[in-house]
């Protein structure tokens, strides 16, 4: 069986398999979701209207024995930013889809009646049924119910109440191998799924054809070299498994780039209490898991399971950006409160980074004071309930800023700026400004080279070299996001040349291709240009590639630096 496209029409409540057109045959993941959106979605359409489409695509290596290959891309026009969007997540769904040889799942149209539906995919095809029982339910309970209905190993893509209510910060949750939750977090794709009245998609790959590898011997050798490089690099082999991404709290605090009190300062007094070092000690003391993978085949294991004082599960995939956001950004120096917030966000289905920026702006507005952890949890419950205040919050940081007439609103193209201050980590500022998807650190992680000294070193406080750095990283990231590999393979890839060779060898062995390094770079460039063209056609201009004004004017201590790039300098980014 060859790979197929599964197209679901929610207007007619029907699904059909299609052949993969030639132009989409050699691409997967982000390259494919962005190609489908660029070709089939009118750039000026309303993101919550019938003309938008929600596209899921496993990466090119999904379902294969390659380490780190379980990422799933989701794409659409974003209701949060109005731009094209790709957001990728771990969990089992990428592998489930790949094992059924489904290269992309396209959900289009919308039903006439105000009812929710569930989409069930298995080896025999697809069924679409009305869903009543799970509506309004949180993700933890709903996923458990679906596992009970279909089987313990079923892949699940699901929205929570925030997605049902079509709020712009809604995410799409993916069941992980333990029945817990990973998320397509950024850009409000959960609201697009909610607008199509799809509560969940289940993917049961039992009895399916599995994944084809054209040259298994060559693949095995390349996969082995790839795994070796990952385990050899100190970041992916030791740092991430030991401390998770939250090791960055102390790093950024020391570098003066940890945005504090809604981006007023670059250091947080309570940093030690929320640091990766403290978190690791707490997890071990309480009998949680300091390392954990978000998908089968993950050997980096940067995730963890965080328990309360009684040893009961609270959350997993407890990331630096969430902890920074509810911690330093909101001046809450209590990891247990932040873990509870993470649990609620996973349950109601809202992006934890956007929510962190939302809370900082809500505190700026005086809805609750800075440092009020209990208040932050209460506001998350308002979002779950869909109260009028909850909806202002749930539509993103920019929405809160507008509702309260504020100017200190850290967003680019309507999307909240994450955990690295652009004034003191200037390379990441260029990524925030120029990314095709609004402020997003993962689009071109200049922090690696500005702060962590991975892939060389470019002084974080100087403008020189940052545009080129961000451009190179954004191109490489677009390519990696298309393979379905976890972005953390970039750490070894930046320092160990064999990593990239092994990735290309795996792609060639799986598909019988003869790609070179240049082809991969060309793919990355093509993805960025496709996405940029969509945004221009949607009405964006280079004037949108700018940071909020307050970064130009308010110096960020301890370095007391401002953002000093001119528009012309930023616009050089697109000169490739």
């Amino acid at each position, binding site marked *: 069986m060859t790979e197929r496209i599964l197209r679901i029409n929610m207007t007619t409540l029907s699904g059909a398999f299609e052949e993969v057109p030639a132009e989409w045959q050699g691409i997967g993941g982000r390259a494919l979701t962005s190609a489908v959106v660029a070709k089939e979605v009118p750039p000026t359409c309303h993101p919550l209207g019938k003309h938008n489409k929600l596209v899921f695509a496993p990466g090119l290596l999904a379902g294969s024995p390659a380490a780190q290959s379980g990422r799933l891309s989701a794409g659409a026009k974003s209701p949060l930013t109005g731009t094209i969007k790709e957001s990728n997540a771990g969990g089992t769904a990428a592998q489930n889809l790949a094992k059924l040889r489904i290269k992309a799942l396209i959900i289009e149209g919308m039903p006439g009646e105000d009812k929710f539906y569930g989409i069930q995919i298995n080896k025999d095809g697809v069924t679409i049924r009305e869903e009543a029982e799970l509506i309004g339910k949180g993700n933890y309970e709903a996923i458990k119910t679906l596992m009970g209905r279909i089987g313990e190993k079923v892949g699940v893509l699901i929205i929570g109440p925030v997605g049902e209510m079509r709020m712009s910060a809604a995410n799409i949750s993916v069941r992980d191998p333990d029945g817990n939750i990973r998320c397509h977090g950024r850009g409000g794709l959960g609201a697009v799924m909610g607008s199509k009245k799809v509560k969940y998609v289940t993917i049961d790959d039992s009895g399916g054809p599995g994944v084809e590898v054209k040259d298994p011997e060559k693949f095995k050798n390349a996969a082995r070299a790839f795994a070796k490089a990952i385990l050899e690099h100190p*970041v992916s082999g030791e*740092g*991430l498994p030991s401390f998770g991404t939250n090791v960055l709290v102390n790093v950024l605090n*020391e570098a003066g780039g940890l945005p504090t009190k809604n981006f007023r300062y670059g250091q947080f007094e309570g940093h030690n209490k929320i640091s990766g070092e403290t978190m690791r000690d707490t997890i071990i003391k309480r009998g949680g898991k300091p390392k954990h993978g978000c998908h089968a085949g993950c050997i980096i294991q940067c995730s963890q399971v965080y328990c309360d004082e009684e040893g009961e599960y609270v959350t997993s995939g407890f990331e630096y950006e969430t902890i920074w956001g509810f911690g330093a950004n909101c001046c809450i120096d209590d990891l247990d409160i932040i873990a509870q917030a993470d649990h609620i966000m996973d349950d109601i289905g809202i992006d934890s980074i956007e929510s962190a920026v939302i809370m900082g702006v809500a505190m700026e507005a005086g809805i609750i004071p800075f440092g009020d952890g209990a208040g932050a949890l209460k506001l998350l419950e308002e979002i779950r309930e869909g109260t009028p205040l909850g909806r202002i919050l749930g539509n993103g940081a920019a929405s809160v800023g507008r509702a309260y007439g504020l100017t200190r609103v850290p967003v680019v193209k309507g999307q909240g700026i994450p955990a690295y201050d652009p004034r003191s980590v200037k390379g990441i500022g260029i990524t925030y400004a120029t990314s095709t998807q609004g402020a997003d650190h993962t689009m071109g992680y200049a922090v690696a080279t500005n702060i*962590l000294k991975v892939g060389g070193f470019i002084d974080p406080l100087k403008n020189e070299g940052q545009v080129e750095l961000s451009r190179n990283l954004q191109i490489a990231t677009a390519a990696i996001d298309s393979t379905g590999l976890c972005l953390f393979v970039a750490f070894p890839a930046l320092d160990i040349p064999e990593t990239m060779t092994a990735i290309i060898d795996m792609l060639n062995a799986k598909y019988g291709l003869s790609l070179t390094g240049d082809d991969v770079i060309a793919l990355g460039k093509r993805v960025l240009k496709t996405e940029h063209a969509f945004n221009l056609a949607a009405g964006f201009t280079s004037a949108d590639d700018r940071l909020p004004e307050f970064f130009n004017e308010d110096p960020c201590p301890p370095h007391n630096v401002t953002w000093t790039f001119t528009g012309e300098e930023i616009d050089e980014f697109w000169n490739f």
Partner: protein
Amino acid sequence: MKITVKLFATFRVGRFAEVTRDYPPDTRVGDIIKELNIPEKEVGMIMLNNRHAEPEQELHDGDNLALFPLVGGG
């Protein structure tokens, strides 16, 4: 002269998180790394008063030195 030394992640194991100690004048960053028995190739980031620094750099009274192994996230 008094120098505050901060260690992070795995460097804390069997050592400390933060101490302020007296060092002779002319002490360099690398001398402290050596004194702590940290192999130089394991050092990912040296931050001196919140700025990246190199082992050859000389220290001054009241300096804050932070040492990290190679770590990452994102």
